[in-house]
């Protein structure tokens, strides 16, 4: 069996298992380390979950996501209902951040607007609402405006990398251009790529994390 065929079957197996999605209408093509996902799912959350699942698979270098989100025909959720649910979810999950976030939903596209203090607040707000039924896409326009001091950001993030059991810190580098942090280097898996990004969340004063780490399976 060719490497491409093996990779295709592995990705399909991983998609079939993933509890976050129904993969029955997802197509997988593999060429070298590039996997292309096509077909359709019934929610934005599933579209994202499909990419995450493919990335867990050994040998996957890049994923092109051409999956279409088609809401179920018997769509029971109206835009204002979804928006209200999103507001409630944020109040429960991130009560400090919730009052600063404005949520609008139009034709299933959920938009987040407002200003938050930390980069991780921006990511958490999106994470908490993106799995609601009836969402076709999330547009995250939250702006991070931090008052915290940026002293030693570079050293602090490198220290976080070194503490982390799942990262080879020597293969990673951090540059800070004011409050914007860029991560570079090489890792063997997407899991490590994501772990490194998450490890940078703790940095005070950071408004953006650009993850340019290369995954070389």
């Amino acid at each position, binding site marked *: 069996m060719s490497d491409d065929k093996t990779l295709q079957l*592995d990705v399909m197996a*991983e998609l079939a*298992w*993933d509890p976050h999605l129904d993969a029955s209408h997802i197509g997988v093509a593999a060429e070298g380390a590039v996997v292309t996902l096509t077909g359709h799912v019934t*929610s934005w*959350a599933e579209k994202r979950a499909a990419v995450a699942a493919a990335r867990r698979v050994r040998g996957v270098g890049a994923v092109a996501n051409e999956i279409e989100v088609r809401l179920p025909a018997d769509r029971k959720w109206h835009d204002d209902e979804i928006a209200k649910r999103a507001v409630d979810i944020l109040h429960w999950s991130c009560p400090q951040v919730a009052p600063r976030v404005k949520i609008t939903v139009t034709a299933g596209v959920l938009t987040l607007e407002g200003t938050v203090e930390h980069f991780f607040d921006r990511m958490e707000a999106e994470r908490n609402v993106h799995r609601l039924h009836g969402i076709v896409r999330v547009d995250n326009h939250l702006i991070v405006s931090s008052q915290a001091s940026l002293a030693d950001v570079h050293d602090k993030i490198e220290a976080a990398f070194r*503490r982390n*059991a799942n990262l080879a810190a020597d293969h990673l580098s951090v540059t800070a251009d004011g409050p914007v942090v860029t991560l570079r280097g090489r890792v063997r898996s997407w899991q490590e790529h994501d*772990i490194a990004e998450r490890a940078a969340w*703790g940095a005070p004063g950071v408004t953006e994390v650009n993850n340019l780490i290369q995954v070389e399976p």
Partner: protein
Amino acid sequence: MNDKQLQKDILAELDWEPFVNPAHIGVSVDHGVVTLTGHVTSFAEKHAAAEAVRRVRGVRALVQDMHVQLTDPLWPDDADIATAAVARLSWRTGIPAEAIKVSVENGGVMLTGQVENHGQREIAAAEVRDIPGVRMVVNALTLRPAVVSPADVQQRIEAALRRNALIDAGQVAVMVADGVVTLTGTVHSLYEREAAAWAAWSAPGTREVLNELAVAGD
């Protein structure tokens, strides 16, 4: 790595973790086995603290002895928690919310009912964890039984381990008997250990996973 350095690293990681306030958390380390004591202000924070500790290089196991001390005297009552839990479960994709029953007593949430797979079981528990006022989550969800031969289960698990980019499948041995999967061998981190267990749960027919994987010490 020695225990003292590991303790320092863990305290640094808890301080670093955005969703944890380490002010009242105690950390003791004995040959890489970490015990957390003290208190945090929510169940979600307790979970975040455990995740933070598990990431740290050198941690081989974690004993959770922290308790949740709710700070707000007007914390939501059990009925509010139950309402929020039911809402969260039914509003999101990926779980058969109608099959899940929620009961709440003194801030402790219990989930019962039957779901299709372990992933759904975990998603349901994660969904109720964040609700203000929750002290504890007891996940009593059961899995729909599947009739699969042990050889089949074993094969599927081994395939799942091999295809996972982070797991060194050659170091993990899989044994299956009557739906109970036992994993033995050595891995490099707790993350890998959990990823292996997750792969074991991926096979229909798995009823239980006994994770006897050891995390390599230095």
